[in-house]
């Protein structure tokens, strides 16, 4: 096995040094009745070349762009990733290192994470960001738990337009700890209806996603003001598409106390849903209650700038059961990828790219409306939107799959009151030609 450096002679010499006869003897401390009764039953080892062939076969049984024309987002977005990001990420000094516990030989990781934290605060308009969490859903759950700890209240309100999967994760985290979740309904224009808060008191936090699951941009400013009529309640802004903040006012600028969500769009492959990047940012005043690792700037013995993991007294390895979270490994490499991506795209580029996403989605939306599909919600959008097709579209959707076109996501599993509603997405990767082809398919079906 090429991963083992030991020759038979090495093994003999080492055993002799230890004073043992055989490799088996190394396990003498494990009682007989704890030993496996039989050998592992696993497939025979594959050579590197056999593994390549096997994995190529598996990969061939997947539908991906550009072969497939995919108009689907819903929490996982297809964006171009510069080759620079992929190659730099493979530098072994980054990806074979562990959490930077020894700062003198981890300055690469530490400075990059400090840069990630900084770019994140700039994107979201917040004061401080942590070194990352698992994904958007768990980041939201952690945000709500943080609000519960801060306010000592036991209830949170979450918009029904927060990604259904994020809400499920929140449910899992909060019911395990015995907290209550109030769901806020939505308005006719596709935005959250805050009147759902009427009569609800003592909320630790109100969570709204923008752009929301329907793709609509929420009016965070007025919502923030409404939430803050109770001074203690935290306004949590979630997101699944951070690229939107290249174009939109940031959550911080609209009064968010915590901004958190999924960063996959920023240079991370979709990989069937994970690993993603849990982005998490808050105000300076809450920093000591924040979950997750933090990198801070300091100086070394020679007075030179350097970076360390800091404020560790919030964390599990010191505070144990009183920690701000149980998180240990985060998604450091994904945070690094997003830093590289944000550096490539730049301030000028992210605006242009965000605008391109917005314009493409508006083009597709208009095109579908022109051939008779209904746009049920009128609130402005970023790169996703909801369409109501006439009953019977399900069959068309399946037929289009055979033509290698994925015409969005049927959302009736999540919103049974919205049959025939499909969530569609267009990014910089979807060409006008492909969008026209989809529009034409829908139009020709409608006319029959």
């Amino acid at each position: 096995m090429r991963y083992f450096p030991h020759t038979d002679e090495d093994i003999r010499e080492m055993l002799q040094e230890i004073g043992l006869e055989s490799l088996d003897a190394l396990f003498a401390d494990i009682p007989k009745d704890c030993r496996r009764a039989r050998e592992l039953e696993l497939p025979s080892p594959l050579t590197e070349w056999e593994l390549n062939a096997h994995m190529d076969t598996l990969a061939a049984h997947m539908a991906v762009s550009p072969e497939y024309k995919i108009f689907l987002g819903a929490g996982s977005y297809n964006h171009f990733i510069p080759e620079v990001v992929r190659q730099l990420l493979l530098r072994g000094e980054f990806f074979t290192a562990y959490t930077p516990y020894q700062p003198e030989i981890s300055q690469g990781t530490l400075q990059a994470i400090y840069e990630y934290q900084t770019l994140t605060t700039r994107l979201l308009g917040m004061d401080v960001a942590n070194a990352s969490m698992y994904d958007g859903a768990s980041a939201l759950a952690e945000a709500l738990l943080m609000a519960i700890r801060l306010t000592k209240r036991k209830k949170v309100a979450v918009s029904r337009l927060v990604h259904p999967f994020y809400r499920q994760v929140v449910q899992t985290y909060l019911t395990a700890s015995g907290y209550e979740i109030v769901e806020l309904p939505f308005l006719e224009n596709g935005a959250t209806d805050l009147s759902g808060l009427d009569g609800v008191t003592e909320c630790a936090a109100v969570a709204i996603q923008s752009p929301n699951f329907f793709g609509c941009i929420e009016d965070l400013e007025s919502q923030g003001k409404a939430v803050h009529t109770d001074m203690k309640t935290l306004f949590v802004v979630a997101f699944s598409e951070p690229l939107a903040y290249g174009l939109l006012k940031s959550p911080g600028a609209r009064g968010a106390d915590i901004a958190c969500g999924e960063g996959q769009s920023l240079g991370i492959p979709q990989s069937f849903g994970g690993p993603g990047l849990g982005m998490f940012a808050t105000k300076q005043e809450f920093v000591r209650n924040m979950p997750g690792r933090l990198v801070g700037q300091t100086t070394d013995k020679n007075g030179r700038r350097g970076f360390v993991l800091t404020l560790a007294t919030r964390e599990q390895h010191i505070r144990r059961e009183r920690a701000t979270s149980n998180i240990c490994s985060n998604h450091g490499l994904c945070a690094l990828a997003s830093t590289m991506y944000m550096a490539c795209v730049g301030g000028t580029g992210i605006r242009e790219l965000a605008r391109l996403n917005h314009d493409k989605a508006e083009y597709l939306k208009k095109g579908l409306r022109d051939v008779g599909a209904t746009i049920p919600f009128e609130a402005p959008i970023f790169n996703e939107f909801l369409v109501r097709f006439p009953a019977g579209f399900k069959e068309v959707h399946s037929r289009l799959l055979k033509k290698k076109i994925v015409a969005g996501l049927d959302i009736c599993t999540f919103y049974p009151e919205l049959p025939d509603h499909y969530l569609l997405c267009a990014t910089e990767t979807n060409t006008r030609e492909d969008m026209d082809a989809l529009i034409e398919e829908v139009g020709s079906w409608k006319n029959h």
Partner: protein
Amino acid sequence: MEESLGATGLVFNEPLLWEKGRKGRSGFSMPASDVDPFPLDEKFAGEGPDFPDLSELDVVRHFTRLSHWNFGVDSGMYPLGSCTMKYNPKTNERQASLRGIAAAHPLLPVHLSQGVLRMMFDLEHCLAEITGLPAVTLQPAAGAHGELTGMMIVRAFHRDAGSARSKILIPDTAHGTNPASAALCGFTPVSVKSDEQGVLSPEYVASVMDEDTAGIMVTNPNTLGLFEENIREIADIVHAKGGLVYVDGANMNAVMGIVNMGDVGVDIMHLNLHKTFSTPHGGGGPGSGPVCVREDLKPFLPVPRVVKEGDQYGLSQDFPRSIGKLQAFYGNVGVLVKAYSYILSMGKELKKASQLAVLNANYLRKKLTGVFHLPYDRPCMHECVFSDKMQEQYKVTTLDMAKRLMDYGFHPPTIYFPLVVHGAIMIEPTESESKETLDLFIEACKTIAEEAEKDPAVLFEAPTKPKARRMNETEAARKPCLAG
């Protein structure tokens, strides 16, 4: 030492990203717009974030220079105890970046996602075989996430049986994440002392186990690198009071193919694919923390679950007693692929990996006895724990010696953990290291021990070879500067 591994050479200074660049540069191949611009409501339009504008080469040089300041397994021996810093095979990265996998959307119909679903199904099967626990979820994103999942299952199991138990037993040798994970599920951790042999005593467990205790969380092998030899008896005690046995499998690299956890009475256990199964640690993740359970706990596993009907794979939500969802989609698939590739490359050789990991640790233990103090003088599993007791007389600490190891070209071991050993030095060489490398490491340790005696000032100044010297951590915490 004749010539140490550690050397100095040309590295570069490199400013922060926003200290470089010029407005108007770009490192991104921007597609031209092929649609008309569409106005956005002024009310929502912002100015965009204040990011620097850099050229492609600016970005490449920036991160290449940063990478030179880092130490990884690819650079040298990284004997970080409890973290299993084994070699991360390059071929695994190839597999995870195959377009069919890396570009796969998680919400496509299952008939268009058969490749990845099959991979997940097969990986679950392999992990079940390795642990002896038949049902597996791949959803948890890291070890601590797996612990949380496990604790939620414990809670759900008792609720289902109509009892809400409030306590959980956690040995003093446990990872810090264990009590934090238990607390998130509303359990009160009860600390269990390990005995003078460094393991749990059944008598002690029996004295604290009661009917208000949901179960026990045991790290096995434990953080002293010792197999909890009384695990069967402890499991019987906990089971007799209706509790469950959770094993933190962070140290599974010691016992693959040697111990069947299901057979010894373990009900639930998590694995760290980024330790035992060779996926890279990535400077702090992403990891993956699958949870394996005994058959009757399967209904509580997170949804959706990968299922197979005939020769088709699917995703099923139909598990009404499930604890729910732990992350938005199905787990860190990009990491799962790497672990799966590793298992397929290794097959039955996984047992050999454990044997060689334990061989390496015992070789170090033997050769370093007398150089450092060995608080538990008995054969170890995959790691061994020393302390700075012998160097105390020279006012030299574990930290000083750890820092000095860098100068000799080694990543330091885990230090000051486990907490039960004062000034702990926890060394886990893994099976990846050759005898020659171990011998160099031993030599470096001996030299450092001599320096401690004869010239301790060298150690207080260490490290001197890396680009950065010891950091002022107090200043960092007192006046946090977390963003530029």
